[in-house]
């Protein structure tokens, strides 16, 4: 099977700090890859490098177009836009930014909202949706980008059970259609359940391959150190409170 993503000797630095060093891997088309690693391991940096959003060394070859779901905390609170408007943003790059979305584009955006279980919320202001619903709207926006490759940055973080299932269903369908998905997550158990490949980082590549080969105590201990427990023969991560942090914009007293 041909590779949808090929990374050879990737390095990213922010000033004197090295975020990623000599990362090399290839992802076959149609794969669902879980990107794992502790906080600061370079998971988001890897996605940004694949998007061409950060300066890097090494060679990157990514099948275009690339769709992207950033962390929910990056969206602006209280912005006057409804769910349909957010999904339509996904059509802007394709339309060339100045052409208005057509009736077909709007119908397509509504169909995508239906696909993520939010058909009845098209006109609901984005800031009135729950966290899980917002995640699903951002996923629908990424689907509207019609990318061959989809990159998701912690799409399950803070989402309720129904939203998690819907997000994972949509991703699985995307892969069945030949799309390639990379998803960063802190949820090792969920990643082991749904991803067919894993990529483990800790500023460098710790391991990459099929889930059954990678999801082992040895590999995870190399990435997470002593934070890994083995329960009933299955590795698990001692909960890291940092990934539950809310961004400063979302603090209740910030308005």
């Amino acid at each position: 099977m041909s590779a949808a993503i090929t990374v050879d000797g990737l390095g990213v630095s922010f000033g004197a700090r090295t975020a990623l060093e000599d990362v090399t891997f290839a992802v076959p088309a149609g794969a669902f890859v879980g990107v794992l690693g502790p906080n600061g391991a370079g998971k988001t940096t890897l996605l940004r490098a694949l998007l061409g959003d950060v300066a890097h060394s090494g060679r990157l070859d990514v099948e275009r177009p690339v769709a992207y779901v950033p962390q929910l905390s990056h969206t602006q609170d209280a912005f006057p836009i409804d769910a349909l408007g957010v999904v339509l943003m996904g059509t802007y790059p394709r339309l060339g930014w100045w052409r208005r979305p057509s009736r077909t584009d709007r119908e397509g955006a509504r169909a995508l909202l239906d696909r993520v279980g939010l058909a009845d919320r098209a006109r609901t202001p984005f800031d009135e949706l729950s966290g899980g619903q917002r995640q699903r709207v951002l996923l629908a926006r990424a689907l509207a980008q019609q990318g061959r490759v989809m990159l998701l940055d912690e799409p399950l973080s803070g989402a309720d059970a129904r939203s998690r299932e819907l997000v994972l269903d949509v991703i699985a369908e995307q892969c069945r259609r030949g799309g390639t998905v990379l998803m960063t997550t802190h949820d090792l158990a969920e990643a082991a359940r749904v991803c067919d490949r894993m990529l483990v980082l800790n500023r460098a590549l710790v391991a990459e391959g099929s889930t059954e080969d990678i999801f082992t105590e040895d590999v995870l201990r190399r990435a997470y150190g002593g934070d890994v427990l083995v329960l009933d023969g299955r590795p698990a991560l001692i909960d890291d409170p940092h990934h539950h942090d809310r961004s400063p914009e979302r603090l209740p007293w910030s308005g």
Partner: protein
Amino acid sequence: MQRALLAGLVLSVPLGLVGTWVVLRALAFFSHAVGVGTFPGVVVGLGVPAIGPFLGAAAAAAALTATVVGLERDERVRGGAVTGLALSAAMAVGAVLLTGAFAVATPVEAVLFGSLLAITEADVGRAVAVAVLALVALGIGARRLLTVTFDRHWAAPAGARVVLVDLGLLGSISATTVVALPVVGSLLVSGLLVLPAATARVLCRGAFAMLPAACAICAAEIGIGLALARELDAPPGAVICAGAGATFAVVMLADRLWPGRRGSRR
């Protein structure tokens, strides 16, 4: 009066369009700093006829914008510290110049709050030019501005040039501020950028709906304010902004008293 009204109505276009993004990007403090930052430039321009108040204001606005953009990249002074510093320094320098090196005939309140008599044919021409520029630039850039404002982490990889969008918006704020000075003055010009758009924000559900609404509200407030200013023999900027502030207060109060209105969020 007719010239002032014409200039004011034309100005309501860039004030409403640019003001909408000022409100959505939370740039009210920056826009106030640009307005006040023109004060020393206007004083120098009035004292040196070869420069003139327009060029003086434009140079001062550009200098303040460049200072804020340049220094706010330093994380140690982020969060408005540089903007506040530049604002205070500009006001202080303007006051020193006015009382010292450049004793000008124009009353200081005309510089700070605008004057019906100060508006020239050239001011109207500049207002038309900036209105057309704002329509073109914000028309072409509307979707980029929307995506960058809502989610800049997604916008950049999706193809929006975030730095260009930011600089374009800051430039639009500076240009609109400079051409609006003769009508509302350097101290109150930010009020007319922010208040009509903030009123539109309360009334409208979508960002794009805010754009024409802010322009219409601004035009009405300028028209009524200029008429009242003439009747009261008061500085137009002060009367217009007082009316704009009262309008915002009434709309906000009504929104609180009758919840469920469009655009409301608590």
